[in-house]
């Protein structure tokens, strides 16, 4: 059986100081997002516009996909279509083999993580180097990303120092971020210059012009793509936007929501390949059309992968990205993953307090917390709730539907809580709720009794 979110979160929580540090580091990013968002007066209007542009696009997606394809072909780009991860990986490998490409540089792409492209290519004798600094760190450590924008946010500089000492030969105990980044710069420049092909993700694909837009801060996508003879851009069908002018809306929202910058350092528009080079676009479904057919959940396809919902989520911040066991962690991942495997990811929609903070910050206004709640209903209907959750819900439902039972239950609970010794009450094994907190002292009377009594006094 797959480990649940709470089991994996428990492992992360063992290091209390690190958990607190992780929490604060992400909250800092959320605060930066706030100042960038409120730095422009039309931010809310832009969210609404972005949401409606995406809504329109999804409602006409087949036509936009075709027009993107036609325009890309006209630009000299080769377009491929993949039903699933397996087909996607085969297409990429095929392009690499046919172009005799052995050394590949890759800029950040959550889609290729989703498809597990790296291990597939490596198995087939191809060297793939992730060039985004965060991605490079976790690639050396053989770990998956723990965040879609900040892939190595779970690591401390000392961890990175150790990894670089082993792999890049930096001095032992070197943990200065400036010097570590410099070592990676020198190491990766060699890779950029000697690569045969470059793989990138896609932030936006413009139907009107056939262009793909890639946003980075490090400049690694442009360095990789421009030095290589072959560029393969991998995208999900939902990356389409109708027109060039729409980029104005999305580029104003993306970096503000992601890292609190007004725009990423590089916003790169690839429309035609360089003379003598080839450019491919691989368009992937992998469950997206299925999600499009789910009325309650199709809005999740509006996502522009900014990560704001993760940075703000109190559960994500204190459980770490790896606890979700899915390429896209956090609130958005918890509504995307059940579409692919309801059983495997059935604990994720419960990894939320339903506080709604994710919905509040989402730049394309996805009703994330509502969808989390709706997935819970489906998980209960499909009868894949864990036994304790199923029965406790049933008991609560009976109790809450019956005033007499509710009063009696309350009295009993107050009595039992009062006479039970603390060490039993807050025993982690008996009461998992008490793992990181303590139960408050029970009140003497119920609210109902208190209300009746205090009304009489008046």
């Amino acid at each position: 059986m797959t480990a649940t979110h709470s089991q994996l979160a428990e492992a992360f929580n063992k290091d209390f100081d690190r958990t607190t540090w992780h929490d604060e580091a992400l909250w800092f990013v959320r605060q930066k997002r706030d100042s960038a968002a409120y730095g422009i007066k039309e931010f809310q209007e832009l969210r609404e516009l972005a949401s409606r542009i995406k809504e329109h696009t999804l409602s006409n997606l087949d036509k936009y996909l075709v027009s993107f394809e036609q325009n890309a072909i006209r630009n000299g780009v080769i377009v491929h279509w993949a039903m699933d991860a397996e087909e996607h990986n085969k297409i990429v490998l095929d392009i690499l083999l046919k172009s005799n490409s052995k050394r590949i540089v890759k800029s950040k792409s959550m889609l290729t993580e989703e498809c597990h492209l790296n291990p597939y290519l490596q198995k087939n004798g191809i060297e793939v180097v992730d060039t985004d600094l965060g991605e490079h760190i976790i690639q050396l450590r053989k770990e998956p990303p723990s965040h879609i924008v900040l892939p190595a946010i779970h690591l401390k500089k000392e961890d990175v120092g150790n990894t670089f000492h082993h792999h890049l030969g930096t001095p032992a105990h070197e943990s200065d971020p400036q010097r570590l980044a410099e070592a990676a710069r020198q190491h990766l420049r060699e890779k950029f210059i000697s690569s045969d092909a470059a793989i990138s993700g896609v932030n936006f694909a413009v139907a009107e012009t056939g262009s793909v837009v890639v946003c980075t801060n490090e400049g690694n996508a442009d360095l990789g793509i421009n030095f290589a003879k072959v560029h393969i851009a991998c995208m999900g069908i939902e990356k389409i936007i109708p027109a060039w002018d729409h980029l104005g809306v999305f580029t104003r929202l993306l970096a503000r929501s992601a890292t609190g910058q007004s725009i990423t350092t590089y916003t790169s528009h690839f429309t035609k390949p360089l003379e003598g080079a080839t450019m491919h676009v691989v368009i992937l479904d992998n469950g997206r059309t299925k999600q499009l057919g789910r009325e309650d959940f199709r809005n999740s396809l509006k996502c522009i992968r900014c990560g704001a919902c993760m940075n703000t989520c109190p559960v994500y911040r204190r459980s770490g990205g790896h606890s979700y066991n899915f390429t896209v962690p956090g609130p958005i991942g918890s509504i995307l993953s059940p579409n692919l495997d309801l059983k495997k990811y059935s604990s994720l929609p419960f990894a939320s307090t339903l506080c709604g903070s994710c919905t509040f910050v989402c730049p394309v206004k996805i009703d994330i917390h509502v969808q989390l709640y709706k997935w819970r209903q489906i998980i209960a209907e499909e009868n894949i709730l864990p036994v304790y959750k199923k029965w406790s819900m049933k008991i609560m439902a009976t109790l809450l539907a019956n005033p007499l039972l509710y009063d009696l239950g309350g009295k009993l609970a107050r009595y039992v809580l009062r006479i039970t010794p603390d060490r039993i009450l807050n025993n982690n094994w008996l009461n998992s709720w008490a793992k990181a907190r303590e139960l408050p002292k029970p009140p003497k009377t119920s609210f109902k009794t208190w209300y009746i009594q205090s009304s009489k006094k008046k």
Partner: protein
Amino acid sequence: MNSRDSILAQVKNNKPALSPLVDLPPFEGDCSMAMFKKSIELSGGKLIEMNSVADTEKIILELFPSAKQIASDIIRGTIAVHSSTDNIVLRQIEVAVLHGQLGVAENGAIWLTEDEMLHRTLPFITQYLVLVLKKEMIVSNMHHAYSIVVPSAYGVFISGPSKTADIEQSLVIGAHGPRSLTILTYQE
């Protein structure tokens, strides 16, 4: 049915009823030099206002007195870079001085295309990047920018030097690309 057709068929089958495409309102904003300067500094860049484009050479000498490998189509005495320049030459470039087409006041981003880059890799492989921009070409925000710039073969908005915060959220300037970005503006 091939994958293309079956994906398109599934999309057609599963998509919601057509919702209308909204018009973009004209978002006006501040396109002053003061705003542009503030945004450039916030992105880690530096702005210098010149009197004339002829001052570029003098300023580059002041900024990079010891630089030997300068690539530019604006100033003299530089290394020739064109679309077929060898990687060995490119990787030694210390300073690239290039034209920018347009600047955005709201975020300090400068648009340049393949035509201004001399080689597609030059603005990224150079250690230090200098972009020279006509003052009249500063617009307020991205909406105005996209209404002016057209999708050429390859075009990039560059805002500040290359940077990363991937190690413990500490900002490091000079990730893979330029270690600094200087914008020189001039009036025609």
